[in-house]
């Protein structure tokens, strides 16, 4: 096994130490509070997607009542129609006929 060249190794270590010291002479200033605050504020004040949508829809004052009204209509209308005897339901057989899938019908093309 070859003996390591101690002189060369020592030189390299010294070179590396010198280089490290040289590099250490370049230090940068830490971030000041203003920069830190600017970054935090930029994120905290960043509108979230649903908030952006809400703003497009006119904000809570307009979008809120409009949403409440649409929900009320959605629930209330079927109930009201049911009370008045109106119904939108159709018999299952009719659906098959309307869709043209009723195999009992004999379809002919003229």
């Amino acid at each position, binding site marked *: 096994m070859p003996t390591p060249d101690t002189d060369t190794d020592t030189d390299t270590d010294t*070179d*590396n130490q*010198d*280089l*490290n010291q*040289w*590099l250490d*002479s*370049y*230090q*940068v*200033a*830490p*971030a000041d509070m203003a*920069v*830190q605050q*600017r*970054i*935090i504020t*930029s*994120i*905290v004040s*960043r509108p*979230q997607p649903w908030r952006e949508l809400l703003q497009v829809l006119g904000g809570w004052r307009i979008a809120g009542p409009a949403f409440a009204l649409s929900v009320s209509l959605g629930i209330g209308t079927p109930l009201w129609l049911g009370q008045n005897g109106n119904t939108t339901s159709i018999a299952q057989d009719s659906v098959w006929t309307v869709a043209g899938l009723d195999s009992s019908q004999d379809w002919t093309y003229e």
Partner: protein
Amino acid sequence: MAAGDQAAFAQLVQRHLNDMLAFIERMTGNRADAEDIAQDTFTKAWQQARKWRPGRAKYRTWLFQVAMNQTRDRWRRQRPTEDLNEVLISPEPMPDQAADSAAQAQRVRAALLALPERQRCAMILSHYHGMNNIEAAQALEISVEAVESLLGRARRTLRQKLATEREA
């Protein structure tokens, strides 16, 4: 963080800002740019928090990755047709160049900026941020062997600069 907790984000900024700012400033050689890129980095980290996988890399390493990508994006946007290193070698005037230590720091800064981008990045992560080769490889998204090679070449170049400086 992934859940979008703003208080946690503020804490993360406090913990990592100095590291990111120092890294970006040494990469670009420009404080004002570094502050802007640091802001972009944290904004990106906030938006992409879900992309960080705890098993793959430390949060700090991932953040360096984001910072590096943001730095590259900035270079691309500023001068899309020029070589990155040409853009970088435009040192800011130091306010007190007469002072020996400031002049020395300026020379180190110029020497770092003259390194190719990846060598500079590996050198900064390794020397100034205490990353071992595995962490640097994760941050640079390259193999450990590639990091060793980059560091070897960077140190050789810098040693030559140092020797030239001493001779002068």
